[in-house]
Every structure is written in structure tokens, then in C-alpha cells.
């Protein structure tokens, strides 16, 4: 029960720290500009930490290690793809996007293409991407709380994260969460690098546990001690070599079993709530789809041509998807100018690169110490459970609690970033964009993903993120790339391309969910649609824009000048200032501003 106490303490610490920083950051937040773009005063370093903190979601913190544990080093392409996505953002988008002076992504679309209708479409797509991204974050929070506190129901983590995030966003919008996200990046880095160092030292000191299968040996991992596994969900297990199970209680292949079992090389359908016992030395039967052989697992591209296709479409989706993610782009509006937007992205590359050194390491250790996760298929829990599997006793529990705190920070920072960007879009596009509207939008926006997270079945945490990336890559990515670098883009072309690309990804997503309930018939293309949808969206935009070239904005040359002119020339016009006014500036100036008014009132009353 020790782990419960430590994990409770660390998670409570993170939650309280988040509350405090949100409160601290939002003391002087009182204008629309504070809530939308943190008054555009965030320095490059702080913004970079906030972006990295926002981006390192559950998928990065626990998802990548889980996937590597299951499928080998090919899954490290997620981490590489994410980081190179930021390089693409730096190369093609960062500075011009900031110089456009927009305050949300739909606002950029309107500023560039001059169409209110298109702005509406962009707003709808922003909300769609935000929801697809937010739901797995909330579900991941439930899973994390559930793995460190077994008595906690799944909904508890979801509700806790939602409450913390909503309160912070209500109190200060972008202003509040900037500080929170920057803090949470450092929490996450600490929470992954300290356990990784300690566990590596332990591993180097004591070596692999007795009886374990070497990672380079042929054959699957083996249980190092007698293990009993209880399944939460039904799984399909692939057995490569015949094994004896001393005790099985539950339903296997539709037949009730209580007692010993012999499984020859076969596939076994094991129902939920079945408990399976294995003796030490038994090869681990794995969920279908996992790489069985350790030697194969260690080698990249061992799955042949389909694997190669998957890897390339993953690289493609992440490389282009990052530069269309609305909640990431929203953070770039908070920089003072285009040059600092560039510096920010550069610094993000450094911060992400440092973080991504660790998941692969932890995954390799998990493969040695936690083979039972390959039976249940809950590989996302690998990082969370690794310390207590490697170091029995209090020390392991403390390390586990640190990792749990980091994972919790991951859910909170990503969800708060998503919520701010969604509330910003809804409040400025649906209502009038006052602070009050922003607050109402926050509450309104969070309801749907909260319900969905509670009701939908949780799949691998990374799948939702992959779909959001595909959606972003096939809608906003072409609009940004063409809008920034090509004068010929028209609002008709952009609209048709976005709707087409977006709806194709939506079809793929729905197909995936349906196939998940009706026997996994979906082909690989549906799981990784970007390789098809992105080129389609690009081509559609170009062709339709060429056909409707009379609809080009008349002042396109001036817009291009504004997007690309160096900052000292002073072309940037912040559209939020134009729409909402400067608002009050910070405390000192506000006092100065009040004084003349008081004086005039006094003089008028005396007169």
C-alpha cells in the first residue's frame, strides 16, 4: 500500500503547484488580450518551455515507451517525427505566422484570405482537432491514476484533471497557463530523467534478473518468476511455443476454464477478468500484433514492406501534422515578434530532444523486467510500473510516484493548452470575445470531451494523437504552407481543400472506431491516412485556387509583405489590438491612467 501514499503525495503536489502557478500567473490578467495571447509578452525561453510542456502529452510521456516495448525501435519514429515536426514549423511557419498578427488560427485564415465564411470552417476544424486530441489526454489521466492507485475508478483521474485545468483556464486563460506549462515541462523532464538514470545505474549494477531472456537472443521474453496476470479487457494472445499454465480461471476461447491448461502454438481468445498463472521460465504469450521474438524486436524494420510503409506514413504525418496543430500554434501568438517566435521554436527543438532521449531507454528496461504487460496489452503502463518492478521497497515506490507525477503533469499541461486554444476560438468566433465570453466558452467547450472520455472505450493513447495529427496535416498544414509561401491561394481553394482533407480523415477515424467494435477489419491505410489525405488536400487547394484565381485577395502583395517583412520595419499589426483594443496595461500604467480621470472628476465636482 506504500505506493498509494507516495503517489498520492506526488500527484497532490503537482495539482497544488499547478493551481498556485495558475493563480500567480493570472493575478493581472483582466483583458481579452491576456486570455487569448498573454498580451504577446512571453519571452522566447519561457514560451519554448511552455510549448514543450504543452506538447509532451501522455502520448510522449508514457505512450512511446509502451509502443517501443511492444513493437521495437521503429516506434521511436514518433519521437523523431514530433521533433522534426517542430523543425518544419521553424522552417515554414513560425515567424510569418506571428507576423500576421493573428490571435487564433481561424483569425490567421481570415487575415490571409479575407473570408469570414472560411474563418467559420477553420473554427469548426480547430474544435474537431482539439476534441480528438483532448479525449485521449483525459482518458490517459484516468489510466494513470488507475495504475498507481488501483482502487481509483477510471473516471476519477478524468474528473480531477478536468477540474484543475478548467479552474486555471477560467482564472487567467493563456496568461495563467503559460507559467503552468513551462513549470510542467521541467516537472516532466525531471520525472523521466531521474528515474531513468537511477534505473540504469541499478541495471548496470545488478544486471538482468536471473533467468531472463537476453534482449538479443532468439525467442520471446520469459517470466523471471511465478506470475499471475488478471486481464481487464479481453485479448487475443499469440502463443509461439507450447506452454503449461498451472492455473487458469475464466473464459478462454469461449469455454469456461478452472484449473490447469496446456496451450500449443496457437491463438487464444481470453475474455476479460480471466486470471492466468505462469511459472518462472515460461515464454510470454503476447497480445496479437506485438513483436514476439527478442532478436526481431531489437532490430529496426524487421516487419518487411508493410512496416516500411507504416514508418514512412508515420514520419509524414508527424512531420507535417505538428505545423497544423492549433493549440501549438496558439502559443506562437504570445511571442512579441517574428524573430522571437523563431528563437522559441529553436529552443523547443533543444527541450524536446533532451526529453526524447529517455523513453526508448525505459522501454528496453521494461522489456526485461515487465513481460507480463505484454500479456495484458496494457503497455502504456510500462513506465509507471517499471521502478517498482526493478527496485522492490520504498525507493522503487518513490521513483514510481515521481513518474506518476510527471505523467499527471503531462495530461494537465496538454489539456490546458488545448482548452485555452479552443475557448479562444469559440469565444472570438461564436461570441464577442470579451473575457466573460472566454470564461463561458471554456465551460461550454470542455463538456463534450469530458462526456466522450467517460463513455468511449480507451484504445492506445497514441492513436487519438495520431488521428489529430493526420487531421491537422490534411487541413491547416496546406493552408499555412500555401498561404504563407504562395500568392495564388484563394479562399475557395483553401475551403474546398480543408473540407475534403478533414472529412477524409474523419471518415478514417470513424471507420477505425467502428472496426474496433466489430472485429478489427480496418486496413493500415485507415489507421494512418495522412499519406493519402495530405497530398489530396494540397492538390485540391492548388487546383481550385488556380481555377478561381479572380478571388485572390486584392491586397495579397501587402499581406505577403506583412508576413515576411523583418520585424524592425514594423509592419506587424496585431489584429487582437485592432479588434479588442489595447486593454489596460500592467499595474503601474493603470494607476497613471486612472489619476487624470480622478483629477478631472474632482475638478468637475468642485466646479
Amino acid at each position, binding site marked *: 500500500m506504500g505506493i498509494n501514499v507516495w503517489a498520492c503525495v506526488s500527484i497532490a503536489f503537482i495539482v497544488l503547484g499547478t493551481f498556485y502557478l495558475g493563480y500567480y500567473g493570472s493575478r493581472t490578467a483582466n483583458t481579452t488580450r491576456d486570455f487569448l495571447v498573454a498580451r504577446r509578452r512571453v519571452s522566447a525561453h519561457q514560451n519554448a518551455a511552455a510549448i514543450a510542456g504543452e506538447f509532451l502529452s501522455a502520448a510522449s510521456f508514457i505512450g512511446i515507451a509502451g509502443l517501443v516495448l511492444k513493437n521495437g*525501435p*521503429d516506434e*521511436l*519514429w514518433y519521437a*523523431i517525427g514530433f*521533433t*522534426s515536426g*517542430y*523543425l*518544419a514549423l*521553424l*522552417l*515554414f511557419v513560425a*515567424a510569418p505566422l506571428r507576423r500576421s498578427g493573428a490571435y487564433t488560427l481561424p483569425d490567421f485564415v481570415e487575415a490571409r484570405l479575407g473570408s469570414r465564411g472560411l474563418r467559420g470552417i477553420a473554427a469548426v476544424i480547430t474544435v474537431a482537432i482539439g476534441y480528438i486530441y483532448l479525449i485521449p489526454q483525459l482518458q490517459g489521466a484516468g489510466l494513470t491514476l488507475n495504475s498507481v492507485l488501483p482502487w481509483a475508478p477510471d473516471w476519477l483521474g478524468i474528473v480531477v484533471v478536468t477540474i484543475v485545468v478548467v479552474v486555471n483556464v477560467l482564472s487567467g486563460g493563456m496568461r495563467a497557463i503559460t507559467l503552468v506549462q513551462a513549470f510542467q515541462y521541467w516537472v516532466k523532464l525531471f520525472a523521466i530523467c531521474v528515474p531513468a538514470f537511477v534505473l540504469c545505474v541499478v541495471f548496470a549494477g545488478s544486471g538482468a534478473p536471473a533467468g531472463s531472456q537476453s534482449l*538479443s537472443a532468439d525467442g520471446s521474453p520469459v517470466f523471471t518468476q511465478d506470475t499471475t496476470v488478471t486481464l481487464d479487457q479481453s485479448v487475443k494472445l499469440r502463443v509461439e511455443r507450447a506452454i503449461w499454465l498451472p492455473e487458469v480461471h475464466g473464459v478462454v476461447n469461449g469455454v469456461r476454464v478452472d484449473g490447469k491448461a496446456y496451450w500449443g502454438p496457437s491463438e487464444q481468445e481470453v475474455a476479460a477478468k480471466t486470471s492466468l498463472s505462469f511459472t518462472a521460465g515460461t515464454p510470454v504469450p503476447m497480445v496479437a500484433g506485438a513483436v514476439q521474438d527478442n532478436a526481431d524486436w*531489437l*532490430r*529496426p*524494420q*524487421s516487419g518487411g*514492406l508493410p*512496416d*516500411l510503409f507504416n*514508418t*514512412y506514413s508515420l*514520419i509524414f504525418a508527424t512531420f507535417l501534422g505538428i505545423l497544423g496543430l492549433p493549440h501549438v500554434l496558439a502559443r506562437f501568438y504570445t511571442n512579441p515578434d517574428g*524573430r522571437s517566435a*523563431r*528563437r522559441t*521554436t*529553436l529552443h523547443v*527543438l*533543444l527541450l*524536446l*530532444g*533532451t526529453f*526524447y*532521449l529517455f523513453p*526508448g*531507454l525505459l522501454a*528496453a528496461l521494461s522489456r526485461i523486467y515487465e513481460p507480463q504487460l505484454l500479456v495484458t496489452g496494457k503497455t502504456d503502463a510500462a513506465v509507471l510500473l517499471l521502478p517498482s518492478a526493478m527496485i522492490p521497497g520504498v525507493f522503487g515506490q518513490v521513483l514510481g510516484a515521481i513518474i506518476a507525477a510527471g505523467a499527471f503533469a503531462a495530461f494537465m499541461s496538454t489539456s490546458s493548452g488545448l482548452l485555452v486554444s479552443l475557448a479562444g476560438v469559440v469565444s472570438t468566433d461564436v461570441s464577442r470575445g470579451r473575457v466573460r465570453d472566454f470564461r463561458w466558452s471554456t465551460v461550454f467547450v470542455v463538456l463534450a470531451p469530458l462526456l466522450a472520455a467517460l463513455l468511449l472505450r480507451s484504445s492506445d493513447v497514441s492513436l487519438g494523437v495520431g488521428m489529430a495529427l493526420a487531421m491537422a496535416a490534411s487541413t491547416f498544414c496546406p493552408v499555412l504552407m500555401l498561404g504563407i*509561401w504562395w500568392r495564388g491561394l484563394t479562399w475557395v481553394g483553401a475551403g474546398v481543400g480543408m473540407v475534403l482533407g478533414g472529412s477524409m480523415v474523419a471518415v478514417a477515424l470513424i471507420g477505425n472506431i467502428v472496426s474496433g467494435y466489430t472485429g478489427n477489419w480496418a486496413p493500415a491505410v485507415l489507421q494512418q491516412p495522412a499519406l493519402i489525405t495530405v497530398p489530396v488536400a494540397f492538390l485540391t487547394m492548388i487546383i481550385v485556387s488556380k481555377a478561381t484565381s479572380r478571388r485572390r485577395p486584392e491586397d495579397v*502583395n*501587402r499581406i*505577403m*509583405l506583412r508576413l*515576411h*517583412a*523583418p*520585424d*524592425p*520595419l*514594423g*509592419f506587424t499589426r496585431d489584429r487582437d489590438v485592432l479588434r479588442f483594443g489595447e486593454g489596460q496595461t500592467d499595474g503601474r500604467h493603470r494607476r*497613471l*491612467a486612472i*489619476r*487624470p480621470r480622478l*483629477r478631472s472628476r474632482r475638478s468637475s465636482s468642485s466646479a
Partner: protein
Amino acid sequence: MTGDRTPEQPSTELVPVESAAVRKPQRRKKVVLAESKGSRTVAHTMVELEEQTSVDEHLVRSLVWAQFRTSFWMAVLLIVTIASLPMLFYLFPGFGDLMVFGIRLPWVLLGALPYPLLYGLGVWYVRRAERHERDFVSMVDR
């Protein structure tokens, strides 16, 4: 043009806020820090650029083109270096069994090496992009 290179140094021609407020409380003055001597010529250039004479339009086009070329070639470099790895592993499976410092080479290539490379590319790009911008400023700031 010096205004963009030394933004840290506040101009010595600041309007003292306090004394102005004491003497003339009616109107508040706009205090602009760090936009020194160049600002008048820049304002002039801005008007010219906004009016889009053919020369200026050409200047802007060439800036956009130069920036795009840099970005594009950086992206190509990235694809050639990093995105060729899966193909390499696929075509030469034996490559995956090499060892470096007791770790399999692919794990080093996929787990650690891309990040310094990406950062280096980023630094290089930012330098070049800012050089293009300085050139543009010095060109329009006649």
C-alpha cells in the same frame, strides 16, 4: 541601419515620463524604447513599400523567394539525412546488428543522434533566415 541590431540599448532620447506628467498632466506621451534614429527612415520606407512600386514589389518577392529557398533546402537536407534511415535498415538488415559502445547501432541512430542533428539544422536555418532579413532591411533602408 542600426535599429535592429542593438535593441537592448535604450535610446538616450527618452521623454522623461515623470516630469512630463508633472508639468503637463493633460496629454500622455507615447514612450517608445529601443527604436532609435532609424525609425524615421523606416517609416518612410514603410510608406514606399506599402504603396508597392514595382521595385519594392520585386524586393519583397525576392525576400520571400530567398526565405523559401532556404527553408526548402533545409527540409530536403532533413529528409535526406533522417528519413533515409528506415530505407537503409530495410535494405541492409545486417546494418541493424552492428554495435556501438555496447548498444545496437540502430538504437543510437534512432534514440539519440537525430536530436543534435535537428537542433543543428535549426540553428543554421535561423542564422540564414536572419541574414536574409538584415540584407532586406539594409536594401530598403536607403
